[in-house]
Protein backbone atom coordinates (compact mmCIF):
# COMPACT_ATOMS: atom_id res chain seq x y z
CA UNK A 1 0.00 0.00 0.00
CA UNK A 2 1.45 3.43 -0.89
CA UNK A 3 2.30 5.80 1.96
CA UNK A 4 2.78 9.49 2.64
CA UNK A 5 4.55 11.26 5.46
CA UNK A 6 3.04 14.13 7.40
CA UNK A 7 4.82 15.75 10.29
CA UNK A 8 6.93 12.70 10.91
CA UNK A 9 4.05 10.22 10.74
CA UNK A 10 3.81 7.66 7.95
CA UNK A 11 0.29 7.06 6.71
CA UNK A 12 -0.97 4.63 4.13
CA UNK A 13 -3.64 5.35 1.54
CA UNK A 14 -5.34 3.49 -1.26
CA UNK A 15 -5.63 4.32 -4.94
CA UNK A 16 -9.32 4.99 -4.39
CA UNK A 17 -8.45 7.80 -1.94
CA UNK A 18 -6.77 9.87 -4.64
CA UNK A 19 -8.59 13.04 -5.64
CA UNK A 20 -7.76 14.40 -9.08
CA UNK A 21 -7.17 18.12 -9.54
CA UNK A 22 -7.05 18.54 -13.32
CA UNK A 23 -5.89 22.15 -13.02
CA UNK A 24 -3.72 21.70 -9.94
CA UNK A 25 -3.99 24.27 -7.18
CA UNK A 26 -3.66 28.01 -7.77
CA UNK A 27 0.04 28.70 -8.23
CA UNK A 28 0.74 24.95 -8.20
CA UNK A 29 -0.53 23.65 -11.54
CA UNK A 30 1.68 20.56 -11.22
CA UNK A 31 -0.15 19.23 -8.14
CA UNK A 32 -2.75 17.03 -9.82
CA UNK A 33 -3.27 14.20 -7.36
CA UNK A 34 -3.99 14.71 -3.68
CA UNK A 35 -5.28 12.76 -0.73
CA UNK A 36 -7.25 14.15 2.18
CA UNK A 37 -5.97 13.01 5.56
CA UNK A 38 -8.09 13.06 8.69
CA UNK A 39 -6.36 12.87 12.08
CA UNK A 40 -8.62 12.99 15.11
CA UNK A 41 -6.24 15.03 17.26
CA UNK A 42 -6.27 18.00 14.89
CA UNK A 43 -9.93 18.00 13.85
CA UNK A 44 -11.60 20.13 12.51
CA UNK A 45 -8.41 20.54 10.49
CA UNK A 46 -7.48 18.10 7.75
CA UNK A 47 -4.40 17.70 5.59
CA UNK A 48 -4.63 18.10 1.86
CA UNK A 49 -1.55 16.22 0.70
CA UNK A 50 -0.31 16.43 -2.88
CA UNK A 51 1.19 13.14 -4.06
CA UNK A 52 3.20 14.86 -6.78
CA UNK A 53 5.51 16.55 -4.28
CA UNK A 54 5.92 14.69 -1.04
CA UNK A 55 7.42 17.65 0.83
CA UNK A 56 4.17 19.56 0.62
CA UNK A 57 1.00 19.44 2.70
CA UNK A 58 -1.77 21.98 3.13
CA UNK A 59 -3.73 22.34 6.34
CA UNK A 60 -7.40 22.85 5.48
CA UNK A 61 -10.69 23.28 7.30
CA UNK A 62 -14.37 23.21 6.37
CA UNK A 63 -15.21 26.94 6.47
CA UNK A 64 -18.62 26.22 7.96
CA UNK A 65 -17.01 25.13 11.20
CA UNK A 66 -15.68 28.71 11.47
CA UNK A 67 -18.37 30.81 9.84
CA UNK A 68 -21.73 29.15 10.39
CA UNK A 69 -23.37 31.00 7.49
CA UNK A 70 -20.44 30.70 5.10
CA UNK A 71 -22.03 30.60 1.75
CA UNK A 72 -19.97 29.85 -1.23
CA UNK A 73 -22.56 29.24 -3.82
CA UNK A 74 -20.73 26.98 -6.23
CA UNK A 75 -19.86 29.24 -9.18
CA UNK A 76 -21.26 28.04 -12.49
CA UNK A 77 -17.84 27.53 -14.03
CA UNK A 78 -17.02 25.14 -11.18
CA UNK A 79 -19.90 22.83 -12.02
CA UNK A 80 -18.53 22.55 -15.53
CA UNK A 81 -14.90 22.26 -14.44
CA UNK A 82 -15.70 19.46 -11.99
CA UNK A 83 -18.11 17.83 -14.41
CA UNK A 84 -20.41 17.72 -11.42
CA UNK A 85 -23.54 15.67 -11.74
CA UNK A 86 -26.69 16.57 -9.89
CA UNK A 87 -26.49 13.99 -7.12
CA UNK A 88 -22.81 14.36 -6.27
CA UNK A 89 -21.90 16.10 -3.03
CA UNK A 90 -19.42 18.97 -2.92
CA UNK A 91 -16.96 19.04 -0.09
CA UNK A 92 -15.74 22.53 0.75
CA UNK A 93 -12.37 23.24 2.34
CA UNK A 94 -10.30 26.36 2.94
CA UNK A 95 -6.54 26.71 3.23
CA UNK A 96 -5.17 27.57 6.66
CA UNK A 97 -2.05 29.57 7.42
CA UNK A 98 -1.11 28.49 10.92
CA UNK A 99 1.47 30.61 12.71
CA UNK A 100 3.28 30.26 16.00
CA UNK A 101 1.21 33.19 17.29
CA UNK A 102 -2.37 31.84 17.12
CA UNK A 103 -3.78 35.35 16.82
CA UNK A 104 -1.97 35.67 13.49
CA UNK A 105 -3.28 32.40 12.10
CA UNK A 106 -5.62 32.86 9.18
CA UNK A 107 -7.88 31.02 6.78
CA UNK A 108 -8.49 31.78 3.12
CA UNK A 109 -12.26 32.07 2.75
CA UNK A 110 -11.94 33.71 -0.65
CA UNK A 111 -10.53 30.77 -2.57
CA UNK A 112 -12.08 27.53 -1.32
CA UNK A 113 -11.07 24.08 -2.51
CA UNK A 114 -14.11 22.22 -3.80
CA UNK A 115 -14.18 18.46 -4.14
CA UNK A 116 -16.84 16.34 -5.83
CA UNK A 117 -17.05 13.57 -3.23
CA UNK A 118 -18.23 10.79 -5.49
CA UNK A 119 -16.29 11.68 -8.64
CA UNK A 120 -13.19 12.39 -6.50
CA UNK A 121 -12.33 15.44 -8.54
CA UNK A 122 -11.36 18.75 -7.08
CA UNK A 123 -10.30 22.28 -7.84
CA UNK A 124 -9.58 25.56 -6.14
CA UNK A 125 -11.81 28.42 -7.14
CA UNK A 126 -11.72 32.15 -6.50
CA UNK A 127 -15.08 33.53 -5.43
CA UNK A 128 -15.83 36.57 -7.58
CA UNK A 129 -17.59 39.56 -6.07
CA UNK A 130 -17.11 38.16 -2.61
CA UNK A 131 -16.29 40.04 0.56
CA UNK A 132 -14.68 36.99 2.15
CA UNK A 133 -11.07 37.57 3.07
CA UNK A 134 -7.99 35.75 1.88
CA UNK A 135 -6.60 36.17 5.40
CA UNK A 136 -9.52 35.84 7.77
CA UNK A 137 -8.22 35.37 11.36
CA UNK A 138 -9.00 31.87 12.64
CA UNK A 139 -9.94 33.11 16.07
CA UNK A 140 -13.24 34.93 16.21
CA UNK A 141 -11.90 37.47 18.68
CA UNK A 142 -9.25 38.60 16.21
CA UNK A 143 -11.76 38.83 13.40
CA UNK A 144 -14.02 41.29 15.22
Amino acid at each position, binding site marked *: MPTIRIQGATLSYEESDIITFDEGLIGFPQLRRVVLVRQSDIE*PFLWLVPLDDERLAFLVVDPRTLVADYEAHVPRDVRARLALDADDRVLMLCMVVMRADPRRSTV*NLRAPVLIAARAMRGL*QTILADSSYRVDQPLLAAEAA
Partner: protein
Amino acid sequence: MLVLSRKSGEKVVIGNEIVVEVLAINGDVVKLGITAPRATSVHRFEVFAEIEAANRAALASCELERELIEQMATRLKREHDRAKP
Protein backbone atom coordinates in the same frame (compact mmCIF):
# COMPACT_ATOMS: atom_id res chain seq x y z
CA MET B 1 5.18 37.30 -25.52
CA LEU B 2 2.92 38.12 -28.42
CA VAL B 3 2.21 41.84 -28.64
CA LEU B 4 -0.78 43.08 -30.65
CA SER B 5 -2.14 46.58 -31.15
CA ARG B 6 -5.92 46.82 -31.09
CA LYS B 7 -8.33 49.72 -31.41
CA SER B 8 -11.56 50.12 -29.51
CA GLY B 9 -14.08 47.59 -30.82
CA GLU B 10 -11.40 45.23 -32.12
CA LYS B 11 -10.92 41.68 -30.86
CA VAL B 12 -8.35 38.97 -30.25
CA VAL B 13 -9.14 35.27 -30.27
CA ILE B 14 -7.23 32.81 -28.04
CA GLY B 15 -7.52 29.15 -28.97
CA ASN B 16 -10.83 28.37 -30.63
CA GLU B 17 -13.16 29.67 -27.99
CA ILE B 18 -11.81 32.63 -26.06
CA VAL B 19 -12.45 36.09 -27.46
CA VAL B 20 -11.14 39.28 -25.89
CA GLU B 21 -12.65 42.53 -27.11
CA VAL B 22 -11.47 46.05 -26.39
CA LEU B 23 -14.74 47.70 -25.43
CA ALA B 24 -13.49 51.16 -24.56
CA ILE B 25 -10.32 53.12 -23.93
CA ASN B 26 -10.46 56.04 -21.53
CA GLY B 27 -7.09 57.59 -20.71
CA ASP B 28 -4.98 54.83 -19.15
CA VAL B 29 -7.94 52.51 -18.55
CA VAL B 30 -8.84 49.84 -21.08
CA LYS B 31 -12.19 48.12 -20.73
CA LEU B 32 -12.10 44.51 -21.93
CA GLY B 33 -14.92 42.14 -22.72
CA ILE B 34 -13.99 38.47 -22.41
CA THR B 35 -16.00 35.60 -23.84
CA ALA B 36 -14.79 32.19 -22.68
CA PRO B 37 -16.20 28.69 -22.20
CA ARG B 38 -17.95 28.11 -18.90
CA ALA B 39 -15.16 25.88 -17.66
CA THR B 40 -12.58 28.64 -18.06
CA SER B 41 -12.08 30.86 -15.06
CA VAL B 42 -11.19 34.50 -15.68
CA HIS B 43 -9.75 36.72 -12.96
CA ARG B 44 -7.88 39.97 -12.56
CA PHE B 45 -4.23 39.00 -12.28
CA GLU B 46 -3.79 40.70 -8.86
CA VAL B 47 -6.49 38.48 -7.38
CA PHE B 48 -4.86 35.37 -8.81
CA ALA B 49 -1.43 36.45 -7.50
CA GLU B 50 -2.88 37.12 -4.05
CA ILE B 51 -4.33 33.60 -3.84
CA GLU B 52 -1.09 32.10 -5.11
CA ALA B 53 0.82 33.92 -2.36
CA ALA B 54 -1.72 32.74 0.22
CA ASN B 55 -1.31 29.13 -0.93
CA ARG B 56 2.46 29.42 -0.58
CA ALA B 57 2.05 30.84 2.91
CA ALA B 58 -0.29 27.96 3.77
CA LEU B 59 2.45 25.43 2.99
CA ALA B 60 4.46 26.64 5.97
CA SER B 61 1.79 25.29 8.33
CA CYS B 62 3.06 21.73 7.94
CA GLU B 63 6.45 22.79 9.33
CA LEU B 64 4.85 24.00 12.56
CA GLU B 65 4.97 22.06 15.78
CA ARG B 66 2.04 19.72 15.95
CA GLU B 67 1.18 20.92 19.42
CA LEU B 68 0.32 24.38 18.05
CA ILE B 69 -2.07 22.86 15.52
CA GLU B 70 -3.65 20.68 18.20
CA GLN B 71 -4.10 23.67 20.50
CA MET B 72 -5.80 25.66 17.75
CA ALA B 73 -7.99 22.67 16.91
CA THR B 74 -9.09 22.47 20.54
CA ARG B 75 -9.86 26.20 20.68
CA LEU B 76 -11.89 26.05 17.49
CA LYS B 77 -13.86 23.04 18.70
CA ARG B 78 -14.62 24.89 21.92
CA GLU B 79 -15.75 28.03 20.03
CA HIS B 80 -17.81 25.90 17.67
CA ASP B 81 -19.55 24.02 20.49
CA ARG B 82 -20.29 27.28 22.28
CA ALA B 83 -21.85 28.74 19.13
CA LYS B 84 -24.31 25.86 18.89
CA PRO B 85 -27.79 26.63 20.19
